[in-house]
């Protein structure tokens, strides 16, 4: 039996109130602290015998002990009843009235016992209370907005504490109701309602959720905390913001809801079911920054630590519909209890659980998707001329000769009247390049590539219920999303099951049992040697003149890529089973011990089939590729097991106005993985790909490993009268990932809060009802590094040289790039303010923080290349991140009309405050020869260094007149249409100096790629049965350097990557171009080369080609209608709601070509991200 501590407003009767009004106001405490048992219905015996052997103590202590030992609870005004008074109590087996008689004898205090409720008051007031009670009964039913009965709602007569609570059917009955009074209905998490009784004898009530509720309980690490008592920075998103969104996963639903929770697509872009990348408050590691720089977000390791019902899991392993609430713990004080896992924040997801009374709910959603942004291809003729111009500029011959241009024109005038490609003389090949260049067909590739709309649907059915001793929640979810591509299969399907049983075994022991199962299937086209999504890369480069089919056939051309991507596929099945039995013991009131065992296992299969496809020669021969022997089947199995016993024990107790809680715990974790990778070539048949039906080479490999952690943790909470709040956390973690002498770390945190509005002298209570200041400091570790870094290891592989025609085994050179590693540490200081105003309709939270990440595992010092290996990683970097976040919400109701707004705004800036780069070199090369910016002390993370451009040269005279030696950038000839660069240091030449911060030549900071001023704005309205909501989300400032991407350069790239969208036509050309002169162009003179001459304009970042990554997006808009229950009840439906919802419907951005959230695809650079979806859906929620 859970006891909820809460405040209950106790008002005296009207005239009584008038008398005491002045005192009450002065006291500011209108709350009479009490507790009550919400589940206990029925009459409680006043004959219950109690034993109190307290000796000399205060009245308050005695009352508290009575509450502890019984179900009685006291209502009194602390100003009117002296609880500090000392009494001596030594009583055995006494009834409650005997005890109270004894301690209040000789005082002005009298008491009245009403069921479990005991009202204490000065005699004169109580007499009037008693006198006003008349003989009249009012009854009714209390339900929530879904029409479901609410159990345990407090129903009381306004002005006095007389009242009751609703039973398991939501019914209540009150007798002795005075005429001129109102009933007050209150319930945790619901808006309190008040209604005039008048002459009514039946009053039914609908309570709606109170998003700003003072009583809101927030899930925190290893427990819960009343929101008003929080001292850390915690943001919460409730189920109402997550349910009913036509999104494939929880991440999508959370985007824009929580300040400084950054959720952005990875290089998987908008692939069906794609995971997104996350960070909290911009906290990140060097490894992450590097991965992000490379667009390789899948290897990002140090994201937030995510726990679902206390079990570490992926955020998207949960069906969004099963979620009750999401807590985002942001500062070190809130996360320190998770120690070394929590350096980058913690997200706690709590799923729904069973309640009394049986409920069956179904929600379904059917949606249709199309790409958000896919740039428009330039028209066929312009494309041809642009490619030709680029070829001529590069000193090469034109891609399209006069004959091809003529054919193109003919085809445009009369589709199909001229060949889209012509056979070569030998009749074996066609004259178009493998890249599609030279094709002259009239195709509308956009409509060939994309579906008009791709369907998706999701369903969730849940059954929950229970009684006093047992409750359950059982839910099944299904989601299926089809990809945007028309002729290719890319699907995502997910099944979820969530089951929870809570049972009360004895009065002091409860048993919980949780089972969660998730299975997902991803199906994608696969490309040998590249992987998933390569077709997006390919489709991004298609030329509009590329013929899609061979003449007079239905066979896809080789250049279309379609047959190739249709022939090969990947099927990835992910299965996860979580089992968690738990025992909760409460042998003594307030002492709760949790014994939990968390078990999670994943069994994933990846099957890849490379089948044959064919293309057609001009002579009609079909060419099959790869050869039969080159067909392939890959079967990989990834399995792992996570096991973690958790024990934590807490003791909560109040001594008068001192409230204390202590918790200590122990946890260990072990993780083992075992992967089996196999591949076979030469499939006997396309129809049944398997290892058994392969007759070529077989390879088998495995990956096995394990890791473990062990931890002790504890927490102390103390508050005085819920006015001064303190919390202290400590965790000591050991991790197998570090050497024995470096594997233990201790992480403390401290936080405090001051509820100013509780003070007697609080001056603003008419304006701001509630005002709290918070401050916290703490330090955390990050153990999220790879296993065994401290041991120099040698990987075994097969040779890439054939010895006698065979691959032999080889052992790679030792990898000692990361020995001596230990924890990264994050110390955070946070100051916050929470306030509520205008009768709690307005609430606001503001936090400022500074996080210092020390001992960052960086790529090490910049060392001379003779080292001959990547510089060993060391714990030596330091980043300081400063940021703030603001959350404001408003909620109100006027008659049938209720509405709310919520806005979040956040920002941060990270600066490298220490890095072992004494010469402050600005850039270096990675192991594969890619130049990347290096770090140095004082560098703002995301800084983009480059050259300032002064526009385009217009003529040979202009080049002469500019007079700056630009040989450093490109030492060949410069032409009109190329970029001129600003000679910052006036030495007559563009250089990088010594490429250091002090001697940086003409390099300047052009911008910063950090997401600045992220915001989200949501609004919702309901009027009678109609509801409307929308969510806008955006970023106010961001610079993007996208010049390396083929799709950004357009025609200024080698033929493979050259593409031509409408905006690309704005390139520099003189009047020799068939497209006419364009001296005021945005893009420079294009060259049909990979790098070479293009380096003049795109070789280094320039302000001219920096793009504005700011955007604002209508993430979701939803209109729903709830069918009146008087209609639905006839078919035993308590509630039915239908709605229309749209995702990503509008986007405003200045960014060229790309979706501002998806511009980095899997294949690094070409801008080949799978587009995000714009989805319109129709949904239905039904409750029985």
């Amino acid at each position: 039996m859970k006891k909820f501590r809460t405040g209950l407003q106790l008002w005296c009767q009207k005239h009584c109130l008038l008398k005491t009004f002045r005192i009450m106001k002065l006291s500011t405490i209108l709350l009479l602290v009490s507790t009550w048992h919400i589940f206990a219905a029925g009459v409680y015996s006043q004959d219950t015998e109690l034993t109190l052997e307290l000796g000399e103590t205060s009245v308050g202590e005695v009352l508290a002990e009575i509450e502890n030992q019984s179900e009685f609870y006291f209502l009194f005004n602390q100003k009117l009843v002296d609880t500090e008074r000392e009494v001596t109590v030594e009583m055995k087996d006494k009834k409650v009235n005997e005890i109270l008689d004894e301690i209040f004898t000789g005082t002005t205090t009298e008491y009245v016992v009403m069921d479990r409720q005991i009202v204490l008051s000065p005699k004169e007031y109580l007499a009037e209370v008693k006198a006003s009670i008349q003989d009249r009964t009012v009854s009714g039913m209390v339900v929530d907005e879904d029409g479901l009965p609410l159990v345990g709602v407090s129903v009381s007569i306004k002005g006095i504490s007389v009242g009751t609570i609703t039973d398991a059917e939501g019914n209540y009955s009150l007798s002795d109701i005075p005429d001129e009074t109102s009933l007050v209905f209150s319930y945790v998490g619901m808006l309190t309602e008040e209604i005039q009784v008048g002459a009514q004898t039946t009053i039914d009530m609908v309570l709606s959720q109170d998003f700003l509720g003072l009583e809101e309980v927030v899930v925190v690490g290893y427990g819960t905390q009343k929101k008003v008592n929080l001292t850390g920075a915690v943001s919460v998103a409730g189920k109402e913001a997550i349910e009913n969104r036509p999104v494939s996963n929880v991440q999508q639903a959370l985007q824009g809801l929580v300040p400084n929770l950054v959720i952005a697509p990875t290089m998987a872009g908008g692939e069906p079911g794609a995971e997104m990348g996350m960070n909290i408050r911009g906290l990140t590691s060097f490894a992450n920054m590097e991965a992000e720089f490379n667009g390789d977000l899948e290897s990002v390791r140090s994201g937030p630590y995510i726990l679902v019902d206390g079990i570490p899991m992926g955020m998207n392993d949960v069906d969004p519909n099963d979620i009750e609430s999401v807590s985002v713990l942001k500062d070190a004080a809130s996360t320190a209890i998770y120690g070394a896992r929590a350096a980058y924040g913690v997200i706690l997801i709590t799923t729904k659980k069973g309640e009394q009374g049986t409920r069956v709910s179904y929600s379904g959603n059917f949606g249709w998707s199309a790409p958000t942004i896919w740039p428009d291809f330039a028209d066929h003729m312009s494309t041809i001329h642009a490619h030709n111009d680029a070829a001529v500029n590069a000193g090469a011959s034109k891609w399209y000769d006069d004959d091809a241009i003529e054919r193109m024109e003919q085809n445009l005038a009369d589709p199909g009247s001229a060949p889209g490609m012509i056979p070569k003389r030998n009749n074996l090949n066609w004259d178009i390049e493998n890249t599609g260049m030279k094709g002259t067909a009239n195709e509308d590739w956009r409509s060939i590539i994309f579906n008009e709309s791709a369907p998706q649907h999701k369903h969730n059915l849940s059954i929950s219920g229970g009684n006093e001793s047992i409750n359950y929640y059982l839910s099944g979810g299904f989601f299926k999303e089809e990809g945007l591509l028309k002729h290719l299969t890319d699907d995502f399907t997910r099944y979820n099951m969530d089951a929870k049983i809570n049972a009360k075994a004895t009065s002091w022991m409860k048993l919980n049992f949780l089972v969660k199962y998730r299975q997902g299937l991803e199906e994608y086209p696969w490309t040998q040697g590249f992987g998933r999504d390569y077709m997006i890369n390919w489709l991004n480069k298609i030329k509009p003149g590329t013929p899609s089919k061979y003449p007079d056939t239905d066979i896809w051309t080789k250049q279309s890529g379609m047959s190739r991507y249709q022939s090969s596929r990947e099927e990835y099945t992910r299965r996860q089973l979580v089992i968690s039995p738990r025992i909760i013991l409460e042998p003594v009131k307030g002492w709760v011990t949790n014994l939990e065992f968390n078990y999670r296992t994943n069994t994933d299969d990846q099957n890849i089939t490379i089948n044959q496809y064919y293309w057609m020669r001009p002579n009609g021969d079909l060419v099959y590729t790869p050869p039969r022997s080159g067909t392939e089947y890959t079967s990989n199995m990834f399995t792992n097991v996570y096991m973690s016993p958790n024990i934590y024990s807490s003791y909560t107790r109040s001594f008068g106005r001192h409230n204390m809680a202590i918790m200590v715990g122990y946890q260990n974790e072990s993780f083992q993985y075992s992967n089996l990778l196999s591949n076979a070539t030469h499939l006997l048949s396309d129809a049944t790909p398997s290892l058994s039906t392969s007759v070529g080479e077989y390879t088998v490999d495995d990956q096995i490993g394990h890791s473990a952690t062990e931890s002790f943790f504890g927490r102390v909470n103390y508050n005085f009268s819920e006015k001064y709040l303190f919390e202290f956390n400590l965790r000591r973690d050991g991790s197998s990932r570090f050497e024995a002498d470096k594997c233990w770390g201790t992480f403390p945190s401290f936080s405090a809060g001051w509820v100013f509005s509780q003070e007697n002298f609080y001056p603003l209570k008419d304006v701001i009802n509630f005002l709290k200041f918070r401050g916290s400091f703490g330090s955390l570790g990050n153990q999220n590094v790879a296993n065994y870094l401290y041991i120099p290891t040698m990987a075994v592989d097969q040779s890439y040289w054939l010895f006698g025609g065979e691959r032999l085994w080889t052992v790679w050179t030792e990898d000692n790039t990361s020995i001596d590693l230990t924890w990264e540490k994050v110390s955070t200081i946070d100051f916050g303010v929470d306030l509520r105003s205008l009768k709690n309709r307005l609430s606001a939270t503001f936090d400022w923080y500074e996080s210092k990440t020390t001992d960052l595992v960086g790529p090490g010092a910049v060392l001379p290349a003779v080292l001959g290996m990547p510089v060993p990683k060391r714990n030596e970097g330091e980043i300081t991140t400063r940021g703030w976040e603001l959350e404001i919400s408003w909620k109100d109701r006027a008659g049938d009309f209720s509405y709310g707004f919520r806005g979040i705004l956040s920002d941060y800036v990270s600066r490298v405050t220490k890095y072992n780069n004494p010469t402050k070199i600005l850039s270096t090369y990675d192991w594969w020869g890619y130049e990347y910016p290096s770090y140095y002390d004082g560098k703002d993370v995301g800084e983009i260094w480059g050259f300032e451009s002064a526009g385009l040269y217009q003529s040979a005279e202009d080049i002469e007149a500019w007079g700056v030696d630009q040989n450093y950038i490109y030492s060949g000839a410069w032409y009109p249409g190329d970029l001129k660069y600003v000679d910052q240091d006036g030495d007559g030449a563009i250089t990088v100096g010594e490429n250091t911060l002090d001697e940086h030549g003409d390099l300047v900071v052009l911008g910063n790629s950090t997401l600045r001023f992220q915001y989200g704005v949501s609004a919702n309205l309901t009027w009678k049965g109609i509801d409307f909501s929308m969510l806008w989300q955006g970023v106010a400032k961001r610079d993007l350097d996208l010049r390396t991407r083929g799709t950004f350069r357009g025609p200024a790239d080698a033929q493979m990557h050259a593409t031509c969208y409408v905006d690309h036509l704005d390139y520099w050309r003189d009047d020799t171009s068939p497209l006419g002169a364009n001296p005021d162009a945005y893009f420079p003179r294009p060259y049909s080369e990979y790098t070479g001459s293009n380096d003049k304009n795109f070789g280094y970042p320039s302000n001219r080609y920096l793009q504005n990554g700011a955007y604002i997006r209508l993430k979701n808009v939803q209109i729903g209608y709830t069918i009146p229950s008087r209609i639905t009840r006839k078919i035993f439906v308590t509630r039915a709601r239908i709605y229309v919802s749209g995702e990503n419907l509008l986007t405003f951005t200045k960014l060229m070509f790309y979706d501002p959230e998806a511009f980095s695809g899997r294949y690094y650079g070409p801008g080949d991200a799978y587009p995000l979806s714009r989805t319109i859906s129709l949904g239905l929620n039904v409750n029985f």
Partner: protein
Amino acid sequence: MKNTIYLISALVMGIMLNSCEDFLDRTPLDQISDPEFWKTETDLELYINGLYEYFEGYATVGMGGGWTKDCGTDIVLEKVGAYWDTYTQRLDGTLTVPSSGGGWNWSKIREVNHFLENAGLVEEGDLLDHYTGEGHFFRAWFYFELLVKFGDLPIITETVNADNEELLYGSRSSRSDVLDFMIIDLDSAISKMKLASEVGPSRLNRDIAALFKARVCLYEGTWEKYHLGTDFEGKTDGTDFLMAAADAANEVIEAGNYSLETGDINSAYYELFNQTDYSKNKEVMLYKHQDYLAYGNQFGNQSQNWPNGYGISHEMTQMYLCSDGLPIGISPLFQGDSTLYQVEINRDPRCAQTIMVPGDIIAINQEDTTFFNLPEVFNCPTGYESEKFRRPQYDAESGSPSHDVGYIFFRYAEALLVYAEAKAELGTLNQADLDKTINKLRDRVGMPHLTLGSIAEDPNWPDYGHSLPDYVYEIRRERAVELYGEGFRFDDLMRWRAHDLWLGKRFTGTLYTDELKELDPNMFANEEGYLDPFQVILNGPDGGYGFHEDRDYLLPIPINELTLNDNLDQNPNW
């Protein structure tokens, strides 16, 4: 109640006591740790086998372009705009100083040093010495890659660690000293390694080490001879290196383990370069074996993409002697070269076996044989496609061109050419030397012998920038003709200090006939009507190559390296 408390306490204590430090002790399960390695001879083999990967062959399948190693020199021109061969940029003098990277890469040196440091830990085994010798060979091989790019180098013989400041911030040794160091390694390799007959055709062996020693010594000998007095000079005039080159080459010749692969004079040369299996070949000493069907992309090459975007220069075609042994400028047999076909009439048979002309076979696919008709000038900027390396026999199983043509790293013919050139440069060449070297190569293709004292003066001898004895011109011609496309040309141009060959000049292709124009109408041609693919892209005088003779013989050291290490000096004039 009390029982409950005991129960909980017992549980908590139980779990805590159960967890000792062992719980956190987790060692790798699927990797070998370095300290545990280095026990047996097999461990040495496992490690050294990995280094063979660094023998670069033709571009692997799917990489696009780049088939011949000589692409970007004066004898093989690349297609404009398609590739990014640094040779063209280097000859054109358009490289810039990178901030880092730029070829200044020491990872392979580290890998092999780690091997050599640990090889001594293994005490027993028949092949112990052989594998150690392979290690010494690889270190010299990797050093040579750096030497040709940067000249002077730091000499590093141990595994450098991040705290080893002496090595990290060391200075460069003179290139002559670097060579001496490489010779020590190669002498160790020669003394330790076994013969091919003992270790098989896929591994390095004693003869290969000797030939490589000859190669690097010839390189350095001629470099120091011709760059003497310039910014690029070494410590010597090159004589000692040239003698070492001749000795090492002679060692290979005298050992008699290899010989020229001969046969029909009109096909033996051609057939030498388009085989998939050289394991039984008498001449090929080391080659990269491919097996695309069995092992995929990384074990195949781009042969299906002929002509791969490059073409043989007109200037190269003019080097071939006529079949009477006289150069085309004076031989009555020369038929001109206004058509593709004419170019190989009455010429050194290697011309016909190197250049594709109409009527040559390009594909044999089961019953179908396809003959060459006209070049794809769009993809072959000079019109002269290569017949050398081209295997017409389609792969029977896949029905597509074979991806499996082996790439040759060492063949016996090179020993003959090195010996002759070294002796010639030393001025000690005699007829017997020619007869055992150059004339053996000429015999294979039925060409008249080269005879000292009766060498006809060629009015078109290339301008190497120095006046040379007549036999040196002919030995260099022989080298270009014999080794066309095998990756020696760029190094030859550099060591001969031969910038007069290309500075301010452009190389051309075949005559841009109406027939070719009809096929590809937009190509550039010069005033005489020859294809002139680089007409508008070069950056030197007269629209030719813009090489800086005081700078571009070596690559620049990256800026960062100079910033980090004060003891490092930039190469001349960068």
